[in-house]
């Protein structure tokens, strides 16, 4: 076969592909951008209300109706930061909270560090088995001083979801907050996220708070003392992703009453509701998403009046990946979790009893979160090929790309405006320019790479490949020893 024949065949294929997909892709493009506009509009309305609320807020120190909170901290080989993290959790401003650390069979000095720092003694406590767990609990420990509200549960290694389920069983308070061991909470973070429970104590079942990347910021004794931009572009780009996801996505969905995702890095739940739905599903990848979906399903099936709300105030700070390898693993995991949960709850689609969850939120996640990378990959492959073969007009293709990616930048900039208007966490002007630059650079290489990684995650699930968690390499914080 001659080279001309190959290129001619390829050209015919590309032309045919573009003819066949042009209308659906343009429709998809219009639909996704319109839905993003709607979400931006909703987020704007919500933020206007939030801003009014904030500018007229009255002091609330959590007196009276503030429900007690158990902070659940699963820890696996976290010897480096666990003591600092627990100390910072214990000193949060809140009238009634305890910290429950679940040492998930660490093979390093995690438990020894805790034992030494808090002078732990073993108690012969038998934990309730409201949520069934397979792993054996090895011991329950409390500080000898009898005052510090810390419980450490040692168990055999069986993964994060089971560790959290053990934590729910061990929790003494009516609300449970699920945290990552390396999360840094705002001193008033608990006051913010529990407020909806205090305001609506009989209906509120879960709240989520906004999460920000901590990379580059100055941290002293588990507290952020100066918010700075990350020092490299990879986390900077993730920062703009977080801004978009939390300040537009979650806020918009919360406004619409269709919040279906509360981040695993910080979520607050009524303990009895978590028990009622059977806790987190062991072995799932997107356990946070799955839990919220299960709560929605059960409470809607039973026709109960309930609320799940998002609190846009920054509540928790987390370290984001700084290497492509770790980022790849994270994105594969996220997309796999998204697919598996959406598939598991497909029966909720377009069913009247699930209201906006079934009619809006779930279809949106299917169409614009799950399938989007597939279509984007098609575009990434077909456009350069078409340019190479000369089957599309070059200025036309470039314009189309500028339009598509320009729209993505527009959405990020809308989130930036909201952030600047409502929170203005970054003092320096340099942070503004870097964020704007990151919102543009995101579209050059980063976006295409994450498209591929997400599809890898989806594909590995479809092939039934066992998920390997991998290691999140942490660079640690710019910790001041003082």
């Amino acid at each position: 076969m001659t080279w001309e024949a190959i290129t001619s065949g390829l050209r015919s294929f590309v032309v045919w592909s573009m003819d066949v997909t042009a209308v659906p892709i343009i429709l998809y493009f219009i639909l996704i951008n319109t839905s993003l506009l709607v979400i931006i509009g909703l987020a704007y309305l919500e933020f206007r209300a939030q801003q009014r609320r904030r500018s007229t807020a009255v002091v609330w120190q959590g007196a009276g109706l503030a429900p007690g909170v158990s902070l659940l901290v699963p820890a696996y080989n976290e010897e480096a930061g666990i003591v600092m993290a627990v100390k910072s959790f214990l000193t949060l401003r809140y009238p009634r909270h305890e910290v429950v650390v679940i040492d998930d069979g660490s093979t390093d000095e995690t438990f020894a560090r805790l034992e030494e720092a808090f002078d732990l003694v073993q108690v012969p406590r038998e934990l309730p088995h409201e949520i069934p767990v397979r792993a054996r609990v090895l011991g329950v420990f409390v500080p000898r001083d009898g005052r510090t509200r810390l419980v450490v549960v040692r168990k055999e290694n069986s993964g994060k979801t089971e560790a959290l389920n053990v934590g729910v069983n061990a929790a003494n308070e009516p609300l449970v907050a699920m945290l990552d061991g390396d999360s840094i909470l705002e001193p008033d973070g608990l006051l913010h996220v529990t407020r909806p429970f205090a305001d609506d104590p009989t209906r509120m079942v879960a709240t989520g708070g906004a999460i920000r990347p901590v990379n580059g910021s100055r941290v002293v004794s588990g507290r952020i003392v100066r918010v700075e931009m990350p020092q490299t572009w990879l986390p900077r780009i993730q920062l703009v992703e977080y801004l978009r996801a939390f300040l537009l996505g979650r806020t918009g969905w919360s406004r619409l009453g269709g919040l279906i995702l509360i981040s695993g890095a910080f979520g607050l739940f009524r303990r009895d509701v978590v028990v009622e739905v059977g806790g987190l599903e062991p072995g799932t990848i997107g356990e946070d998403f799955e839990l919220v979906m299960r709560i929605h399903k059960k409470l809607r099936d039973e026709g109960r009046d309930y609320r799940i709300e998002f609190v846009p105030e920054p509540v928790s700070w987390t370290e984001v990946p700084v290497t492509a390898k770790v980022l790849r693993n994270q994105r594969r995991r996220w997309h796999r979790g998204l697919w598996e949960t959406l598939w598991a709850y497909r029966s909720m689609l377009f069913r009247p009893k699930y209201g906006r969850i079934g009619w809006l939120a779930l279809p949106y996640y299917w169409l614009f979160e799950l399938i989007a990378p597939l279509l984007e990959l098609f575009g990434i492959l077909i456009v350069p090929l078409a340019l190479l073969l000369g089957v599309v007009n070059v200025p036309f293709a470039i314009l189309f790309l500028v339009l598509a990616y320009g729209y993505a930048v527009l959405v990020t900039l809308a989130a930036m405006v909201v952030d600047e208007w409502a929170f203005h966490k970054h003092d320096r002007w340099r942070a503004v320019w870097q964020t704007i630059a990151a919102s543009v650079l995101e579209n050059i290489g980063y976006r295409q790479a994450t498209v591929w990684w997400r599809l890898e995650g989806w594909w590995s699930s479809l092939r039934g490949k066992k998920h390997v968690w991998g290691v999140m390499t942490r660079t640690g914080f710019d910790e001041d020893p003082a």
Partner: protein
Amino acid sequence: MIIGATLLVGATVVVLGACLLLVLLVVAVRARRHARLQRDAVLLSPLRMPLITVASGEDDDGSAADELRRATGATRDVLDRNVVAMLSKIRGVPADQLVQVLEEHGAVELAAAELTSRSTVKRARAAQLLGLARAGHAVPLLVEALGDEAVEVRNSAAYALGLIGDPVAAGPVLAAIGAPERGLPAATAAEALQSMGVGISDVLRDGMADANARTRMVAAHLSAERSFTRGLPELRQLLDHDPDLTVRETSATAIGRLGRGEDVDILVRHTAEADPLALRRACVVALGELGETRAVPALTALLDDSDPRLAELAATALLTMGPDGTAALVGHEDDPAVRTARLLVSLQKASA
């Protein structure tokens, strides 16, 4: 071609233009905030010292307060905002002096008028100012503001009524929680009612019969907080019959704090396995709070409960009941629940 070139160019120009506008907006929002902060700081700087002198209670001859009263124009506006911010943190004579400054500036009178402003923020801030100034004459206006269309205004009005502390407002505040479409957040209502003295016990009793679960819960919670034993019959009713589990748990806790000997039976009744576990646990804790030795047999029986937490709570309750309670633990010394409860109590005693 599916998309015309003109349309594509047009859409691209619009999107890029919008991007540029948003960048300018980010810069403008930031620059405006900086400029405003600087302007306020400059305007306030000559009055900063007198303001601190008054707020710290060191203005013995009243000269600093006089200086504050003489402020005019934009300086006065900035000063009044700072005074309002300070009033939420200070009490006593300094607070009275600062309120006088506000009155002299006409801010209190203006606030009463601004309760009907079209701006939500102005209405909310006006309500707060009236509360911070302890403007008793504004109670009827603030009660009316409890039904405002904006939750910020309803919140601020309840906050203000709490600061004023007139029990006349208790009924409307409690009723506002369950107002259809315009409900008052329960936390704000509870804090406001906390400050309204003993004259609200009847209002709370009525609240426990309200159709709204949040209202019943706040009323039950506050009855315990304020030790209103007259509400006990209603609390017992709620524990027995309320359809909402949170309300029942709150009532059990309240009975534990307020109850009498005869309340042992009702609490014991709801430790039965047929009841939800959360309620059973709340009742066991309440029995411990109540401290009536009549509860010892029931608590002893719960030491063998299938829920280890309930058994531990029962053991802890027995340990607080003196010799009768301790004697009931004989024969259960090896139970993990009893050993845990004993160890925790001993650790707490050692550290006390």
